């Protein structure tokens, strides 16, 4: 499949796309405002994947390599529309109110992702990059053009807010460190 993509064969490219696109769309969905934006990011990301496929040296997993490209594509899209600043997210976060009666139930993974998407865009991006993608705060600062300290503070606030949301949805049992999600086996 990889060789076919290097040879620009449409069938190989489509096979690669069909294999990785569902998961990558899930990645994009965590960064996007809505499904359409997520699909736009996915499309742009895969175009970059195919144009840079010759740079993949095979040293790591192809999925991880593709995922990095997708994440960077998502970040670039977000940065086009937003400047990440501490003050904006603070204002937004302080006005949030969680109405317990309005929180519906959802499947576990989708629940968690939807809860993440409820966060303000700045918090959400930092949380995604740090907690899920595994970037360091220093790397996040370089990606988002913010200070490392800003990244840390935003992540702290994001995590607190997410915990609060998850508790309200009875997905989290404890609101403090070392919390464990309520088991939701699939």
């Amino acid at each position: 499949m990889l060789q076919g993509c290097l040879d620009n064969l449409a069938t190989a490219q489509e096979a690669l796309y069909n294999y990785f696109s569902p998961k990558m769309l899930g990645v994009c969905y965590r960064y996007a405002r809505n499904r359409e934006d997520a699909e736009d990011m996915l499309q742009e990301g895969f175009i970059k994947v195919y144009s840079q496929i010759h740079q993949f040296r095979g040293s790591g997993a192809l999925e991880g390599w593709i995922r990095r490209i997708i994440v960077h594509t998502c970040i670039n899209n977000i940065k086009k529309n937003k400047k990440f600043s501490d003050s904006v997210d603070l204002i937004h976060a302080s006005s949030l109110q969680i109405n317990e009666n309005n929180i519906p139930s959802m499947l576990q993974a989708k629940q968690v992702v939807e809860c993440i998407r409820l966060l303000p865009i700045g918090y959400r991006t930092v949380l995604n990059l740090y907690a899920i993608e595994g970037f360091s705060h220093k790397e996040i600062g370089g990606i988002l053009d913010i200070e490392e300290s800003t990244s840390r503070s935003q992540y702290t606030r994001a995590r607190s807010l997410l915990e609060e949301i998850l508790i309200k949805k009875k997905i989290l049992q404890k609101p403090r460190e070392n919390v464990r999600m309520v088991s939701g086996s699939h």
Partner: protein
Amino acid sequence: MTDFEQSLKDHADQFVMTPSKRVWNGIYNNLHPGSRWPSITVGVVFLFSLIGVGYLNNSTKLPGHPEPENSSRDINISNKNIDYNLTSDFKSFPQSALSFWKNPAVSDANSSETNSVESQFVENPVFSLTDVKAKNESANLNTPSNERSNAKIVVLQNDRRLPSDKMSQGKPAETNKEISSGKSIRVGDASGNVSKMIAKVSIENGLAGISKLTDGSVKSENRSGTMSGNLISSKISYSGILNDKEPRLEIGFENPMSIFPANFTIIPVQFSLADYESAIEADGVSSQTGDGTLNQNKSKTVHKKRNAKISWMYFINPTISDVSFNGKALQPINRQNLSPIVVQPGPLGRMLYNARIGYNAGTQMSYAFSHKWQFTAGADLNYSGYNVISNQVHPTFAYLTLKDSRTGEAYSKSYITHYGNGQGQNQISLANYSLQASLPIGLQYSLWENSDVKLSIASSIAPSFAIKSNAFIISADGRNYVNDPSLLRPVNLAGNFGTYVSFRSNKIKWIVGPNIRYQVLSSYKNDYPVKEHLIDYGIKIGISR
């Protein structure tokens, strides 16, 4: 990484979504651009074809086949044998013109000399249009009957004369744009001098311009006893007939003293417009034998006139936009019972809204395929919407209960919103609107008409493409409004119906009448169970030529 973060990552990694087909189509087209060129090429060809058809049908300068020699509209007149006949309609001609025809020198058809033309030509002769087929009679004024010819010349009437000072002094009249050849008349001059004939075309109340015609070629024709000497012929051409008015062509001569033959005769005929057009189109206009040298052949010339069956209209339609709702909202999913219960929204779930001002503007082509019926097609922009009455609240969670269009399963979508469904101190108006580009096609039927006014009804369907839209939707519990443009349908279908009165003012045709536009498909995708249909009531105002 803490346990929380690890759990978060695990759950996030388990989450997958199936992308829509458009994503792969976009990727494929980007990677393999050659495959999309045929569709782009076809689209460009189609677009230019539309533009070309519209231009050609509205242009008064149409490419045509060159007139063959001796076409039915080319009439060679010998300077000897063609006499002129004036119809009774010429009784109102100016005396000076009449006197010209009465001149004995002119009436001497046997004379081959042009010796007394100078004193004869006073003003330009004026002729009128008559029926070639039907009429072969004319009131003869002081013309010997034995010299009368039955030859016919199709010329046009103009009751305005060329400036006599310019004509008599031989100065060329103003030169205007060239006019295409639609009919021609040849006049002869036995003197052998090259003549220049000037024609003036007047349309309706004004002058289209004066064209200096090219010199004709020297022609001679051998008919027994009919002519001698050389003929100088000049061709008069004019552009097509416009509107419903009788076209007019005034013939004058730059230097009539030297070129006008003494026995030059022109036989005027009078046409009705319809007869004229049918005469031009018809084959085999009867040639006259005898003394006349009318030379008519079947014409294969392309009749160059604007296609009267196609017209273009440009319109604007200010509207009042309203909305209708149907369909029922789904109750929130019960965790114990996964089957959603469909309930009628209660009082809190009823939307408060009012109408907005909208507009519709565009262009429409009409093709008359029968006397009463017309096929219409066009393109327009439509803006419509309504205002939702809301009030500002603290940011709060709200959700919509949607239905997956592929699986049919109900699911919830959460939002954080600042807008409540109610009225109060912090009242705010939320704009739900849609700006759409449409391609309507339909039919128009003429109910009644006379020469001035026409009453018709029209109906069309219009595929529409949403350029920009906004949607505030009431939440499942009816307490809030959430904004989710992703639920809006990008492609829609609209129906139009209207009755119009059309009338002509100067050179412009006006079309005015009420129009209703109804959005057939819901504004929202099938995921959202409530159906919204935008309705526009307006007055359509259009102009056409």
